[in-house]
């Protein structure tokens, strides 16, 4: 189906099903219950889950396949965002031109950065990409203020020219749309105490992510993808096999830069604003963590990693002292206070601490990321069922 093997088609179908039913899956708790704050099924978060999924899928094509660790991918996301917002200011609030131009501009920018950075490998390559990203951030933050809006960033205003859309009524806020369908338009479905929100922007982003995921499967299974894994495995042998490893790594770099630009463009399409902080180095680090956490070099891993991190960022960070006190209210007073004091540093603003611990545990015990964890659990069940001695636990490189 679609030029995929049965197994890959199955994987794509699972991801598609997860995307379609995400409003249900992420909202398991009834409205108004104590657990309702763990519901992640609201449009803003769901959009971020799939958009950062795209970012991580693209990053994985570079890092997972070739092993080149870029520490500057947020720059491409940022450049894509700026390109998209300018399309919205100058041309139209329709998201299609914005998304296309964000991919193209990020592709060109990554071609430049990649061409220079790929003159080195290993740690030097990482440092070069980091330097480029920080320079881009600094430029966007100060020097290029006329183009980037500097500290305040950019939003579409009703006074912008917008050649294709025609003039807006004074004071109206321009809304990003797809041929008139606003990204913010949602339908709510009430079943008992549960409220499920279906948002147009989310489904458009999810559809784009499915295409991005499908393309990444095709790349993984192609001769080109095999060559990229050869780069990671043994560049010496590659060069002595008549293959020029440089254009391969550069192509992978540009492709992953375009994915980052696509993610940046979608971020603007969903929430029409950009700020330079999007290009800060912590944002580049985040996508590295997403990919490793989920499983670098696996197909589904980066999506899982991106989902987990964005979920934690939005949900764990919402747990504050009052919530903790509610949870532990059934305990005797002294113990309640003790528990609240112990748990408090790990939630709310301290959610990074929890993330750090999870990341450490995964890297130490599951070097293959969440995907390896999943396949280990799978193997455990399979062995119990069939009781044959299949070789233990080593995941295939491209699950």
């Amino acid at each position, binding site marked *: 189906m679609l030029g995929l093997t049965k197994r890959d088609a199955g994987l794509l179908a699972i991801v598609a099903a997860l995307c379609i039913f995400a409003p249900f899956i992420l909202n398991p708790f009834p409205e108004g219950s104590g657990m309702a704050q763990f519901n992640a099924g609201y449009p803003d978060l769901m959009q971020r889950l799939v958009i950062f999924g795209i970012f991580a899928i693209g990053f994985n094509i570079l890092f997972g396949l070739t092993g080149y660790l870029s520490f500057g991918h947020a720059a491409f996301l940022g450049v894509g965002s700026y390109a998209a917002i300018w399309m919205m200011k100058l041309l139209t609030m329709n998201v299609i031109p914005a998304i296309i131009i964000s991919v193209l501009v990020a592709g060109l920018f990554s071609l430049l950065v990649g061409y220079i950075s790929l003159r080195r490998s290993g740690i030097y390559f990482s440092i070069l990409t980091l330097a480029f990203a920080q320079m881009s951030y600094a430029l966007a933050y100060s020097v290029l203020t006329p183009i980037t809006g500097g500290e305040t960033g950019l939003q579409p205003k009703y006074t912008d020219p917008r050649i294709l859309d025609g003039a807006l009524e004074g004071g109206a806020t321009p809304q990003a749309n797809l041929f008139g369908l606003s990204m913010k338009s949602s339908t709510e479905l009430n079943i008992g105490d549960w409220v499920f929100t279906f948002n147009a922007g989310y489904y458009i982003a999810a559809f784009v992510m499915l295409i991005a995921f499908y393309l990444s499967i095709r790349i993984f299974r*192609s001769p080109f993808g*095999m060559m990229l894994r050869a780069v990671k495995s043994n560049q010496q042998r590659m060069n002595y096999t008549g293959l020029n490893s440089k254009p391969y790594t550069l192509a992978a770099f540009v492709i992953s830069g375009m994915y980052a630009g696509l993610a940046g463009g979608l971020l603007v399409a969903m929430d029409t604003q950009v700020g330079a902080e999007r290009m800060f180095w912590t944002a580049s680090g985040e996508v590295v963590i997403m990919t490793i956490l989920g499983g670098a070099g696996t197909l589904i891993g980066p999506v899982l990693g991106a989902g987990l991190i964005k979920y934690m960022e939005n949900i764990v960070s919402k747990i504050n002292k009052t919530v903790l006190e509610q949870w532990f209210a059934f305990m005797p007073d002294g113990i309640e206070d003790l528990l609240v004091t112990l748990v408090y540093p790990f939630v709310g603003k301290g959610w990074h601490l929890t993330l750090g611990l999870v990341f450490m545990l995964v890297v130490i015990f599951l070097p293959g990321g969440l995907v390896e964890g999943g396949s280990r659990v799978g193997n455990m069940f399979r062995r119990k069922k069939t009781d044959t001695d299949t070789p233990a636990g080593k995941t295939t490189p491209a699950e």
Partner: protein
Amino acid sequence: MGILEVKNVNKRFGGLQALGNVNLSVAENTVHAIIGPNGAGKSTLLNCLVGKLIPDTGSVMFDGKSVLGRKPFEINQMGISRVFQTPEIFGDLSVMENMLIPCFAKRDGGFSMHAIGSVDTEKDVVEKAKKMLEDMKLYDKRDMHASSMSRGDKRRLEIAMCLSQEPRLLLLDEPTAGMARADTNNTIDLLKQIKEERDITICIIEHDMHVVFSLAERITVLAQGTPLVEDTPDKIKGHPKVKEAYLGETQEV
């Protein structure tokens, strides 16, 4: 004219003259061995042939074309394949994938952007890789991680990968180093078989005299960066200069 012509090649590393006026001619469709004690410059010479090092002076011609200044992948595409002292294979990839990569390199050249079609749909390349694995008796191991194979099998795979590119000159750098006797003999048999079945020139650098004298038709002895003698194996065996190079000054009694 040999297929490989090395003329007046000099290479200096700081104060060390690694190669001094090396002249070497390898005739087409022969097995030519280069021997010599440690530090004789064998590996330096080999690196000059494949583009890893550039000689200070002199010329290296392959099939009438200079290889100097070309990158290793370009020299490989000209028809020179190299087998390394420790097998260089794609350890993280399966044996089948290891075999597919050189087959793609042969068909598509140094770089090609086949990013959408699946590997399995490239029938001609897949068939070629399968046949090569069958010929090399590695087909049963096609799904293994290449790094988990035995040393002997890795060597076999590496040679198979080189052969699948249909090179005109195969360079082997101590192909039996660190091998058990049985594996060494297998490798000798394999190389003999390759020589019989194909139009190929083999140039081999070796320490193990057993290997050299079982295979070579011509032998060049290198000492202190300079060729001492070049002759047939029978002549080399009893040559006084060779004994001198290997054992030090012969003592007059």
